[in-house]
């Protein structure tokens, strides 16, 4: 088992003819992801790495009705449109890689997706991978391996680092989700946790947070209230980041005194969650958690 995506997921790549879209289509195909179609307006009829390209999602879905997820590589100015198109074409999961989407547009499509029952991952995210089954994203596939650990993360590279450490420690993953570094994202920590709670194969969860916002606090509340019952190991990046400064991610900023490292760690620890001081401690803490269980 895995959450959201697995070997049965059939993927459409939106913006497949662009540089990024084409490059990662190749990598995803190599990983084993079942990509059934691509969409780029005005490029209908082309073929990219063996994948047929259509002008619209409507046409792509008409030809490939089995498609149930899409990944968006469309430039920021047109990305919201692509997301709406994917939602209306009935995609269950839409992974938005694109960064620099205006936050007002993200607000709109995230609310719309919720109403339509579509899960949005991102924007500005590395995507989702269920190791050994499918990879819908830009993460390096080789650092992941199948196993019992779920990962949900606001950070890209840090996730790879931690996943690699877990993998080398013999702790593979059910699914790893990079939810994205923007202030407003589709799938949140708590929503991801609801999915991992229901997945019988996930035995423990690694939560990789950052300063800014209150998603970590909400995750802690969920554990505290017993709505998430599996062992959680957390890490929060940005302990030493000064307030008011944007640290790379638009979302990683301490504002009006909220979203501090201390506040997050306090909330997590009060909920009984182990918080690692460094990413390298995580495999050990996960193993302990699994053994205690």
């Amino acid at each position, binding site marked *: 088992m895995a959450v959201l995506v697995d070997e049965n997921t059939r993927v459409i790549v939106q913006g497949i003819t662009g540089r990024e879209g084409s490059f990662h289509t190749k990598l995803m195909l190599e990983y084993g992801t079942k990509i059934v179609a691509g969409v780029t307006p005005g490029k209908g009829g082309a073929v990219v790495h063996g994948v047929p390209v259509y002008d619209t999602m409507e046409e792509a879905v008409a030809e490939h009705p089995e498609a149930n997820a899409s990944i968006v590589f469309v430039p920021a100015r047109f990305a919201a449109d692509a997301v709406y198109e994917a939602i209306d074409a009935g995609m269950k999961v839409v992974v938005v890689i694109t960064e620099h989407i205006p936050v007002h547009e993200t607000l709109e499509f995230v609310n719309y997706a919720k109403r339509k029952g579509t899960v949005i991952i991102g924007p500005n995210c590395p995507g989702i991978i269920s190791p050994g089954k499918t990879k819908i994203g830009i993460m390096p596939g080789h650092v992941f391996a199948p196993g019992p650990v779920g990962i949900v993360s606001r950070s890209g590279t840090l996730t790879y680092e931690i996943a690699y450490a877990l993998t080398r420690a013999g702790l593979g993953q059910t699914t790893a989700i990079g939810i994205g570094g923007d202030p407003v994202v589709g799938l949140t920590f708590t929503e991801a946790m609801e999915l991992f709670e229901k997945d019988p194969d996930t035995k423990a969860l690694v939560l990789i947070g950052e*300063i800014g916002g209150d998603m970590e606090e909400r995750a802690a509340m969920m554990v505290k209230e017993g709505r998430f019952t599996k062992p959680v190991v957390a890490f929060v990046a940005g302990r030493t980041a000064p307030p008011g400064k944007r640290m790379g991610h638009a979302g990683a900023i301490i504002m009006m005194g909220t979203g501090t490292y201390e506040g997050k760690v306090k909330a997590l620890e009060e909920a009984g969650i182990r918080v690692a001081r460094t990413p390298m401690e995580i495999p050990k803490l996960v193993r302990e958690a699994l053994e205690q269980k």
Partner: protein
Amino acid sequence: MKLFEFEAKEILKKYGVEVPPSVLIKKGEDPLAKIKEAGLEPPVVVKSQVLVAGRGKAGGVKLARTLEEAVELVNKLFETPIKGLKPSYILIEKAIEHEAELYTAIIIDRSERKPVVLASKYGGMDIEEIAREKPESIIRLHIDPDVGLRGYHARVIGKKIGLSGKALSSYSRFLMALYRAFMDYDADLAESNPLALVGDRVIPLDARIIVDDNALYKHPELGERKLEETGEYTEWEIKARKMGLAFVELDGDVGIIGNGAGLTMTTMDLVYEYGGKPANFLDIGGGASAELVKTAVGFLFEFPKAKKIFMNIFGGITRCDEVARGVIKAIEELGGMKKPLVIRLSGTNEEEGRRILREAGIEAFTDPIEAVKKVVSL
């Protein structure tokens, strides 16, 4: 992008909000002539147009009881740096007598994924202060993106901060205009604090709008804000931005380069953890080219606060060999290894990267903890 007070007020005025009568003085203009031309009578408020927070406390806002005093203050404020920054504009406004100062802002609530109106009957202090001293006075109303903020929402909020009758209608019109500004300008924040209650109407004494940088392309009329004008960035941050680097200046002496925001922040945290102090945050992002790596390393070679450099790379999409080539380029093309450089290299094409560095006499680490210990010990 933060708008200047006078820009924010122009927008609100365009949307039908009554703002104090005013005149804008550009550096070099004759204040007395402009005040007279605008027909402003003292008392007036003289306000330094800077984009930093806490302008009032820093002495950037002054009351003038006579025209002479106003002119004097204009000249003085042009020469008064506010948090290191001298203004290019001074706004002179008619002083408005008022009975009360309210607070109203619209921001984005990340977790609810909706805009939210924050309002309080206690304006004139920061929202943080209000939250600390009068938390029960803060009214929060989330806006359904499908419906938008409607007149009746504005009235509901107005009532809850104690308004009624005509003042309630005036506040409702004000808040609708503020919302329109928030939406039309893709704002992260639209705020008035203080918002004065004057008889049966409200008048914004101050106004702030921050436009989402990602949406600036939709607003060519706003023009470009020079990085120097904003007061948000240090000299070196401005240099870095102009070179396309995601760089934040800090107070320590260990120069930091990482790939990815989370990993770079974590690298800072690790340096602290092992007793060092980072001089900066510098994220080269995903899939960096050798050229970008060269630029980043070269930049830290020049950045005086960085006495030594720690480069922490986990290769995912980023290829370690490409990173290694960039480091070599920097050393070869920019005049040698100017500062001690500790590199941790792991992930995609790690072996090849390590080999390239070794040929240039650099031994890269695999374990970040060992690397951190090394750099701190230097």
